[in-house]
Every structure is written in C-alpha cells, then in structure tokens.
C-alpha cells in the first residue's frame, strides 16, 4: 500500500507536467489541426530564459511570469510569421516547419547556453534550478506512510488549479466561446464576426505559455535544465493527448496524469523488465493500444476517419 501510494504520488506529480504540455498540444490541434512538434522545444527555450533570469538574481516567481510571457510571445509570433502563411500551402509544409523549429530552437538553446547540464557549479551562481515550492529534503507530507514532497505536491496543485481556470475560460467566457467556435468551424466563426486570426494567434500563445510553465516546473523537479530535457516529456505528452483525445482539453489533463501514473507504476513494480530504460516504451505502448482500441481517445469526439 505504501509503495503503491508512493508510485501514485510520484506518477501524479510527473504526470502534471505531461498534462501541461498535452494541454498545449490539444489547444493547437483543436484550433488548427496541426500537431506542434516544437511544443516541447518552445517550452525548453522559456525554461532556459527562466534559468538565466535566476542567474541574474531575479526571484523565481517573477522570473516565471516573464518566462511564461516569453512563451506566449514566442507562440504568437510563430503562428503569425510561420504557421499561418505556410498553412495556406499544405499541412506537409507546416509539419516540416514545426520540425525545423524543433531543431532550430534546440540548436539556439545550445548556442546560447551551451550543451552541459545547468545550473552547473562551474558557471552558475545557483545550486539548483529554482523551484516555486519548498524543496528541502525535509519538506514533505506523509500520507498513509508514503512521503509526498511539497515541490511535487505543489506541481499537482498548480496543474489542477490551472486546469480549473482554463475550464472556466473555455466554457464560460466569450474568449473561450470564440476558441471553441474556431475549432469547430473556422468559416462560420468568421461569419459571426470572430477574428479567427487573432484567436489562432492567441491559441498558439496560450499553448506555448502553458508549455513554458510545464518546462519550468519540470526543470524544478529535476533541479536542472539540459538540451534533452523535453524530448521525452514531449513524447509522453503526445501519448497523453492521444489517450485523452486530441480535441479534448480535459482529456489531455487526465491523460497526462494517467500516463505519469502508468509510467511510474510500470517502472516501479517491474524494475527488472521496464525499469528506467524502457519507461519510454510505455508511451509507445499506450499510443499503439489507444489507436487499436479507441482511436478518438477516451474523451475525444469520434471525428476520426478510418481508411
């Protein structure tokens, strides 16, 4: 029981990060039908920005706000300057552009901050990547014998609060209505006077901002940031979005948490078979099983077209 709870807590905490990235993927997919392969790398860039602000002595709360704002700007600029003009050509071209962004942003991070793990005692003033929550070894609560470190618990709470806010925005505000209308039928959305271009720009910005939050939180859990940080997070998030349904924000969050728990339970209970090396295989396995059993995902609307 104690072990089970421990894996569950760890899984939910790490799953929160997947949920954030998956939310970003879903918001963009709903709006434009594109899978943004650069989602993880956009988040990583913002995470590096937050690291840099920390180096300059800016407190984490403030640095996070700037990092998220940078994410929003990055997402919006990418949509307006790259995705929008290219999507008139073909979906293939958009795919290639997101791959180019993936590659280019990762290169840019390396070019600016180098390819070592940061913070690094040789070059950094900070010992660890700054975290939002108490992160000393003594900061934990014990539930039925299982320890839940406050910095992990904090991440989960943060994600749940954010999900509630987003749920409210999507379903109860005019902006949310506009976003849902554009996702549902862009042509008609224009006809009722919604500026679809602005909505799409906002969607990309929002997705990148949420992703930035995910990146910062994940680096905080890891105590560090490096160039490969988001590769695996991205694939887990894609698996989460597939599981939850690519057009369902709620599904993305539940999918993210579920993937985190499945991954941790798998690695924890079968250390010989899955262990740390094959944790990633869980993501592949989940995607394939979902595609075989219920391609629209758990909460997606069945718009999936079989061939």
């Amino acid at each position, binding site marked *: 029981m104690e072990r089970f709870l421990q894996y569950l807590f760890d899984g939910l905490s790490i799953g929160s990060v997947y949920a954030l990235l998956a939310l970003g993927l879903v918001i963009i997919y709903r709006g434009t039908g594109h899978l943004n392969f650069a989602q993880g790398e956009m988040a990583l860039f913002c995470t590096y920005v937050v690291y840099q602000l920390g180096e300059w002595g800016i407190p984490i709360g403030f640095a996070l706000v700037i990092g998220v704002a940078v994410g929003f700007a990055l997402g919006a600029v990418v949509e307006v300057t790259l995705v929008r003009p290219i999507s008139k050509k073909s979906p293939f071209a958009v795919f290639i552009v997101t791959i180019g962004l993936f590659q280019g942003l990762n290169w840019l991070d390396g070019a600016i901050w180098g390819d070592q793990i940061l913070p690094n005692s040789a070059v950094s003033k900070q010992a660890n990547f700054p975290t939002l929550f108490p992160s000393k070894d003594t900061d934990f609560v014990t539930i039925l014998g299982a320890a839940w470190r406050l910095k992990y618990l904090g991440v989960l709470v943060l994600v749940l609060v954010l999900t509630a806010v987003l749920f409210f925005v999507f379903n109860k505000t*005019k902006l949310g*209505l*506009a976003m*849902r*209308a554009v*996702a*549902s*039928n862009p*042509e*008609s*959305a*224009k*006809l*009722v*006077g*919604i*500026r679809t271009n602005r909505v799409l720009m906002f969607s990309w910005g929002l997705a990148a901002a949420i992703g930035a939050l995910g990146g910062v939180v994940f680096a905080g859990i890891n105590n560090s940031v490096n160039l490969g940080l988001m590769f695996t997070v991205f694939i887990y998030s894609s698996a989460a979005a597939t599981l939850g349904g690519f*057009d369902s924000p709620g599904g993305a969050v539940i999918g993210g948490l579920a993937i985190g728990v499945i991954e941790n339970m798998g690695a924890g209970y079968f250390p010989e078979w899955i262990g740390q090396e094959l944790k990633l295989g869980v993501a592949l396995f989940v995607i394939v099983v979902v595609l075989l059993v219920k391609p629209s995902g758990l909460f997606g*609307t069945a718009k999936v077209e079989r061939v």
Partner: protein
Amino acid sequence: MSLLEVSTLRAGYGPVNVLVDLNLVVEEGEIVVILGSNGAGKTTTMRAISGMIARSGSITFAGQSITKSSPDAIVRAGIAQVPQGRGTFPELSVEDNLRAGAFVRNDDEIDEDLAHWFEVFPRLRERREQRAGSLSGGEQQMVAIARALMSRPKLLLCDEPSLGLAPLITQELFGIIASLNRDKGLSVLLVEQNANLAMKIARRVYLIETGRIVASGSSDELSADDSIRKAYLGF
C-alpha cells in the same frame, strides 16, 4: 438610399474571377431573391458581400462602403449570413451556437434575445443543451438562422436554406423568414435554386448567369416571362 448597393462587383477564388460585373440593390425591408443554376456565382456573391473572399468594385451598406471591410466589421455593420450547408458549430451546444452569433455585441440584452429566439424556434429550446451536430437538417438550419439573428442584423443573407431539406420543412423555414420580414422589418437577401417557393415570398428577383445579373424585376413580372418561367420554374 438603398440598404445594400452592389455595383461592378468582381470576386472569385485565386486568379479565377467567378463574378465579372455584378450589380444589385436591396431596399430596406424587402426580401430579394437571387436565382441561378449551379456555378452561376450565387454563393460567391454572398461570400463577397460578407467579406470572406477577395473582391473589387463597390459594396455599400447603409451608406457606408464595406468593399474593403473585414468579415467581423461587416457583421458589426449589420449583415449576418446563414452559410450554405448550414455551417453550424457541430461540437457546440445549440445555446453556445446562438451565443456565438452574438459575438460582436457588447450589450447586456443577449440573454433576452436568446430567450426571444427560443420562443420563435421552440424546437431549439427543447434541444438547447444538445450538440448542434446531433440535430436534424431542418433543426440545424434553424440554429444557423437563429445564430445569424443573434447579431441583430439589418440584413440577413441566406444561402440556399432549402438545400437538403424535405419540402415541408423548407416551407416552414420560408414561412419563418417571411414572418421575420413582415413583423420585424428584417431585410433579406436570399439565394435559391428552389425558385417556386422563393418567388412566393420575395418582392424582387435577380437572375444570375456566369457571374452577371441577366434579368431582374418583381416576382410577378419575372414569373410572367415565358422563357424565364421555363428555365427557372420548370413549368
């Protein structure tokens, strides 16, 4: 001053001009029908007026030029379009569809209007929580019309509302459009292939062929013309 004046309109998709030199007028408070065969440019006309495609020439609405306006500015100016094939938001509830129609409004009477249109379309009230995509064709057409009306338009553009509907339902819809015109003074520009029904409710009719208006007049005049009656009314 007419409500809508379109003159020497050219519009199309990419390099191809579908409309070559189109002129038409809608007066305040009348129902005008554009008749024409497939590919004549009916839908293109509607989309050009709504600002959805590139266009040149002159479109004036209530004395203001809207030739260069964006779709949202045109909705704000008072033109609402019911697109061909209904064009509802299938994943959204009926109520959200209608609320989306009021997107350009900032007043606090939206809830009242919602209640009002649910009075006019009681079948939609029964289904207000349902996804619009799950409704029947006729009900979806009602959603599309109610949605357009939620913006409080002065002019309603209806693109082939009868498409894919059973004759009885078409009649019901045309009845609603006629009564909106009669009771509320709503001006309507209607595009139709179903000429018989459309000419009954219209005051004036335009015939469009390959991007040009080839004939116009009152419904009575045109249905009295033998060649036109044969070509468009089929009797």
